[in-house]
Structure formats: structure tokens, C-alpha cells
């Protein structure tokens, strides 16, 4: 297809399916924690607005979670189907980590999701809150394991190579807590929290604009989201800086590529905008700021930054692509922090819900977190190329012996199915978001009468009916 070989098609397919997938877990990680906070606030203060917001967002959560599940099941088999070389050689190390993800996270989430979505009336508020917390913790455990796997692929440690080329575990502690899992896991969790905060903020902004600032639920969600923007976006910028320092140490070629630097030098300029040309080994049309490159990457004006020419051409990641994805991610991070600052000012002036420019800006930035997440992942994963396990196992040696026609057919099928299914899903989510949060908001349980009559599950029911059903 398009003159691409089986390897390029397999990469395209995995990149496409995983980029689609990551949107939903990022959404679930952030939203599950937000729902736990909302339910905790409701139980603590008794203010109905928190329960309304919980019921409002839990419906959207269940849609997003379902899409995350089905797109995730695909990945658990696609690794073997398209990357059998990788599976057979790296499986002994990463396989158990993914096994633990299923055993400690997926089952936990799935087991308590039903209670969280449909069980409020059946188990009562206290147990229901416990279920919500378990689901939220489950999403974080899942993120921990999969980021540990991904970090190991970027900064492998704790393994030995067998004579037949298989990678064998030597020290599980070193595998799991490899040199970059400490920066990658918090960076991704903060990214999920920010992405969801901006979605919540945009929905709040929309309903504030529509109700001229009067919708109580919208005020609460917008206020909470802007606290997140003000506090978490700067924290994420610091975390990103730590991640950059880590990458500079362990994967200098990736840093050279995402900065568009070709020559290693001290007092290096920072190229703000340009077009890295892999053939000509230069970055065209570069607009740079002197010394800033060294300052950002090494925190010193005299620091030496790597250049791509240090590395053999066969070992260079595609700078043209990740130079730009990196800049989009960083740019969005600073925009988020800027919006947070703006909201602080307005909050201090007591005009948080009245500044229509702020509301419009928050609305427009609603999807920005997901754009940043995808750009960040492209940066780090394309920056890992041409290896699947950095410096150890080449992507070309990782691919399955499946011919190009087979991979092309399945790639086209994935594109068609995902466009249709997830297009519809996002439309349903947007439709739910378009309806204003109202007092007495119905939960997903209202859709699902699970029993006609009969057995009463205990005294908690009466308590739940009294409080929950109004």
C-alpha cells in the first residue's frame, strides 16, 4: 500500500491503533479520579451539586471507558500478531509486567465498574464510593505497569541477552523501576489529569456562556478545572523538564532529533522553529535563540547538547516529525499554564465566571490535552526508533513474518472501523456534554433497571434511596 513495506505498514498500524487507544485511557485515568473527588465532596458536604456533577460525568465516563476497553483488547493481541519477533525476544521481560497489569488493574477496574455505574441503589453510598475509588486506583495501577513496560523499552535495564538473542530477566526490580519509569509515570498521570481538567473546563465554560454564568453545576466544574490548570499545568512543565533531562542522559539521539540539532556543541542555540531535513543533515529555515538550547537542556549556558551527526544515519530517529510534535506538546503545556494564571487573576478579582474571553479560551482549549498527549507519545516513541528496545532490539528485527497485503488490509480495516466506531462514540460523548448539568441529574443506573422486584440487598438500600433518589 502506497509503496510501503510490511515493516512500515506494521508501524503505521500499531501507531494508529495505539494513538487512538491512548486518548481513552488518558480520559479514564483523569476522569475516574475526578469522579472519586466529586463523590467524596458529596459525601462530605452533602451538597447535591456534587452528586449531580458525578452523575453527569459518570455517563460520559462509561462511554469513554468502554472505548478504552475495546481498543485496548486489540493491542494485547496485535503485539503478537504484528510484532512476533519483539514478543518472542522481549516477552520474557515485558510479558510478566503486562500480566501483572491485567491481574492487578484490569480485573479490578472491570470488577468494580459495574457497581460504580449501576450499583448506587444496590450497595448504598459508602460502598459505592469505595467502588469508585477502586476504579480510580485501578486506572493508576494500570498506568504504572504499562508505563513501566514502555519505559523499559526506552531505557532497558535489569536484563541479559541470551545467545539466541532473547532478552532474559536478571533483576525484576531494575526492570520495573528502570531509569525512566520515575519520570514517565508521573508525566503521563499529570497529562491525563490536565487533559480531563480541560475537557471539564470547556464543558463548564460552554454552559456558563449559555446560561450567562448561572448554571450552578457549570460554575462548580469550571472553578475546579481552573484550579487544576493553575496548579497542575506548571507542575507538568517542571515534570516535563525532568523528563527531558532524563532523556538527554539515556537517549541523547532522541533529544538531538526533537531539538533539530545536528552538531554537538556547548552554548548551543535553541531552534524555535525550523524544518529538519534528514537527507541534507541540517535544519532549514531555523529561527533560534542563542544559548537557550544549552540552558534548557543542561540548565547551564556552557552545557554541551548532542547533535544528530554524532550518531550513524541508520540509528537516527525522524527529526522532521518529532521536532514538530515536541513543539506542539510544549506549546500546549505553556498555553495551559497561561490559562491557569489568567483564571487565578480573574478568581482574585471575583470575575471568574463573568470573563467571556476566558470562558471562550477555556472552551477552545477543551481538546488540547489530548493533542498534547498524542504529540508527546509520538515524540517519545518515534524518538526511540529505529529500535523497539532502545539500543538492543531493532524494529526491523521485531516485526512478524506477515506479508504487506495482510498488514495493509487489516490497517485499512482498523482505519475504517475506528473512524466509524470512535467517531460515533465521541459524538455521543459530545452530545452528553452539550446537555446542561441539572439538579437531580440522572445516572447511568437510571437506564438500567436490573431487577424487576424481589430481594432487597440490605439496610444500605433504604439509606441510598433516601439520599440518592430525589
Amino acid at each position, binding site marked *: 500500500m502506497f509503496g510501503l513495506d510490511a515493516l512500515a505498514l506494521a508501524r503505521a498500524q500499531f501507531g494508529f491503533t495505539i494513538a487512538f487507544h491512548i486518548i481513552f485511557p488518558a480520559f479514564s485515568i483523569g476522569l475516574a479520579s475526578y469522579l472519586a473527588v466529586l463523590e467524596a465532596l458529596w459525601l462530605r458536604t452533602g451538597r447535591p451539586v456534587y452528586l449531580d456533577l458525578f452523575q453527569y460525568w459518570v455517563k460520559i465516563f462509561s462511554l469513554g471507558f468502554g472505548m478504552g476497553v475495546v481498543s485496548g483488547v486489540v493491542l494485547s*493481541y496485535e503485539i503478537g500478531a504484528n510484532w512476533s519477533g519483539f514478543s518472542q525476544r522481549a*516477552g520474557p521481560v515485558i510479558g510478566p509486567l503486562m500480566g501483572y497489569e491485567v491481574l492487578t488493574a484490569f*480485573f479490578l477496574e*472491570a470488577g468494580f465498574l459495574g*457497581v460504580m455505574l449501576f450499583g448506587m441503589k444496590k*450497595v448504598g453510598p459508602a460502598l459505592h464510593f469505595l467502588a469508585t475509588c477502586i476504579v480510580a486506583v485501578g486506572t493508576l495501577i494500570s498506568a504504572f505497569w504499562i508505563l513501566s513496560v514502555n519505559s523499559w523499552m526506552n531505557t532497558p535495564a535489569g536484563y541479559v541477552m541470551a545467545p539466541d538473542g532473547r532478552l532474559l530477566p536478571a533483576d525484576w526490580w531494575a526492570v520495573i523501576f528502570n531509569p525512566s519509569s520515575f519520570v514517565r509515570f508521573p508525566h503521563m498521570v499529570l497529562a491525563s489529569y490536565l487533559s480531563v481538567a480541560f475537557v471539564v473546563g470547556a464543558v463548564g465554560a460552554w454552559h456558563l456562556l449559555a446560561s450567562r454564568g448561572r448554571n450552578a453545576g457549570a460554575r462548580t466544574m469550571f472553578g475546579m478545572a481552573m484550579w487544576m490548570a493553575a496548579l497542575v499545568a506548571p507542575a507538568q512543565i517542571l515534570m516535563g523538564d525532568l523528563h527531558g533531562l532524563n532523556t538527554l542522559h539515556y537517549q541523547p539521539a532522541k533529544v538531538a532529533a526533537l531539538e533539530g540539532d545536528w552538531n554537538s556543541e556547548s552554548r548551543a542555540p535553541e531552534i524555535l522553529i525550523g524544518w529538519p531535513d534528514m537527507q541534507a543533515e541540517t535544519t532549514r529555515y531555523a529561527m533560534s535563540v542563542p544559548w537557550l538550547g544549552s540552558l534548557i537542556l543542561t540548565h547551564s549556558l556552557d552545557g554541551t547538547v548532542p547533535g544528530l551527526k554524532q550518531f550513524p544515519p541508520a540509528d537516527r530517529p525522524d527529526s522532521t516529525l518529532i521536532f514538530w510534535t515536541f513543539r506542539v506538546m510544549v506549546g500546549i503545556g505553556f498555553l495551559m499554564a497561561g490559562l491557569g494564571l489568567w483564571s487565578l487573576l480573574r478568581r482574585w478579582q471575583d470575575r471568574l465566571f463573568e470573563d467571556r474571553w476566558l470562558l471562550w479560551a477555556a472552551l477552545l482549549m477543551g481538546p488540547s490535552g489530548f493533542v498534547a498527549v498524542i504529540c508527546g507519545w509520538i515524540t517519545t516513541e518515534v524518538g526511540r526508533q529505529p529500535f523497539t528496545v532502545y539500543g538492543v532490539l531493532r524494529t526491523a528485527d521485531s516485526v512478524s513474518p506477515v506479508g504487506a497485503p495482510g498488514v495493509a488490509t487489516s490497517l485499512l480495516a482498523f482505519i475504517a472501523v475506528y473512524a466509524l466506531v470512535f467517531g460515533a462514540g465521541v459524538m*455521543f460523548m459530545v452530545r452528553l456534554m452539550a446537555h446542561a448539568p441539572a439538579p437531580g441529574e440522572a445516572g447511568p443506573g437510571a437506564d438500567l433497571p*436490573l431487577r424487576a422486584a424481589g430481594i432487597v440487598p440490605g439496610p444500605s438500600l433504604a439509606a441510598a434511596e433516601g439520599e440518592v433518589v430525589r
Partner: protein
Amino acid sequence: MIPDSWLPVVWAGLIAFAVLAYVVLDGFDLGVGLLFAVEREREERDVMVNSVAPVWDGNETWLVLGGGGLLAVFPLAYGLVLPALYPTIMAMLLALVFRGVAFEFRFRAASAAGRASWDLAFFLGSAVAAFAQGLTLGGLLAGIREQDGRYAGGWWDWLSLFTVLCGVAVVAGYALLGSCWLIWRTEGALQRRARHYAAVLGVAVGGLTLLVSLWSPFLHPQFWHRWFAWPNILATSPVPLLLLALAYGFNFGLARLHQVTPFLCAIGWFVLCFAGLGISFWPLMVPPDISIWQAAAPPDSQRFLLRGTVFLVPAILAYNVYGYWIFRGKVGAGTHYH
């Protein structure tokens, strides 16, 4: 402390358990989807979907455990079987996407036409996933051509009369599980019709099981030897006898209008068929040549995952049972949706 040579045996048992749990649990979910072919009223379909909505996600997680477990402890088999059965695996994954999202989407659709198309997606997703799983089973039973642990067969190895027969058998088997589930969890007219479906499907599944069982010993000499050579036949003959007993119990339960007996007998049927597969396979992981010891990861990998598994799987079973307990009882009809 389990000796190294026993680790693959333990793990083969655990993976087999995960696959069996998946087949039985998602089997009735997919079966409920298959029965959309004959249940066309909106109210009935809502009840059917609601009966599995709180549990389907947990049921599908066993499939993910099967994949993750294979990668972890039998990476050679994982990297060999999935490329070999690439088309059936991809078809199953795409079908499960449709099936999974349809749970939510059919309630969210704004128009009758939109709802009808997600109902169709639910049915087709269930049907294609079930059929593809049967093809995958058949392809694995028929054997996988390999060279140095890499797939060395062609595009269409997975397609034969035998694999299609397995596909049909799995579809019928899941539909049987689904109708027995509905007998247990619904009431009134829907339950009566479910009894009728179960009676018809029970005969079909019996016949298809017989066909597959008679055919598969001819696939590989090992299979034949395992079942029919003296004295093996002494050990294997109880399997068909137990199947006969289950068939009797199933019909008895249906005739006496029992609520749970048909479902339990159908599950027993799957368990016995699965045990039969185990008898044929042992000690192979991938027929005709790769044994569980050849396919296994180094002992360290197996041991590391096993240490957690022995605690986690009982815990998982416990809270899953709790989940089923919370949502126990008959699923009602006549309620209002959006």
C-alpha cells in the same frame, strides 16, 4: 518451591483456566448478542443487554489475561500462533470492538435507525467474534506450520472445512450458553422463548460436538493415540459418558422448567469439551510439534508472575462473584430509557 520443569505445566493449567473462563463467561455474553437474530423487539433486547451489561467487561478481561499470560510465559507460542492465524485474530478483534461499544451506543442513539444499526453491530460483532474464535480454535487444532519458531505457512492455512465446522460449533455453543443465561436471568415470555431456543440449540451443539470429536483424532496421530490406544481409552472413555449424563440433565432441567440447571449443564458441556481438547493437546502448546516446555519463557519469568498470580486470581474470582451477587436476580422489563 515448584521445580523448573513443572512451571510450564502449572502455567499451561492456569492459561487453560483463563481461556476456559473467557469462553464460558464471554460465551454467554456473545450468545446473548447472537440471539438478537431471533429476538427483535426493543424491550426484549434491552432486557437481554441489561442482563449482561454490568459483567461483560470483566468477562472480556479473561481474554486479555489469556493474551498477556501467553506473552509472559509462552512467548514463543504467542509470537507463532498470532501471525499464523492473523486473519481470524484481526476479525475477532474488530468484531469485539463493535460488540463492546454497542452496549453503550445502542442506548445513546438518538433515532430508531441509529439504534437499529447499533443493534445490528451488537449482533454482527457477537457473531463474527464467535465464528472467528471457532476458526482460531480449528486452526490451532489442525496445526501450525513453523520453522525455527516462526510461522512458515500460507495465507489461507486457517481456512478449511474443519475450521469452518469449529466456527459453526462455537457459534452454536455460545448461542446455547446465551439462551441458558436468559432462562436463568429473565422471566415471562422471553424466558419461555429462551427455553425453546435452548432446546433446539442443545440438539445442534450435541451434533456439532460429535462431529468435531470424531474428526479431530484424524488430524494428528498423537490425537488418535491419546484417545483410542489401549490403555488410554480407559482414561478417556469417561468424557463421552459424562457428556451423555449432562445431556440428560440438560433436557431434564428444560422439561421441568428449572431456572439454573440448563445453564449449569451447558457450562459443564463446555468444561468437558475443553477437557477433551486438553487430553488431545497434552503436552503440546502448538500442534503438531511445539511442546509447552519448548514454548515456555525462562523459569525466572514464569516464577515472577506466578508468585503474584497465586494470590491475585483467587482475589479476582472472589470480587467477581461479589459483582455477580450484587446484580443477582431476574432482570426486569417495561422500564423507560432515554
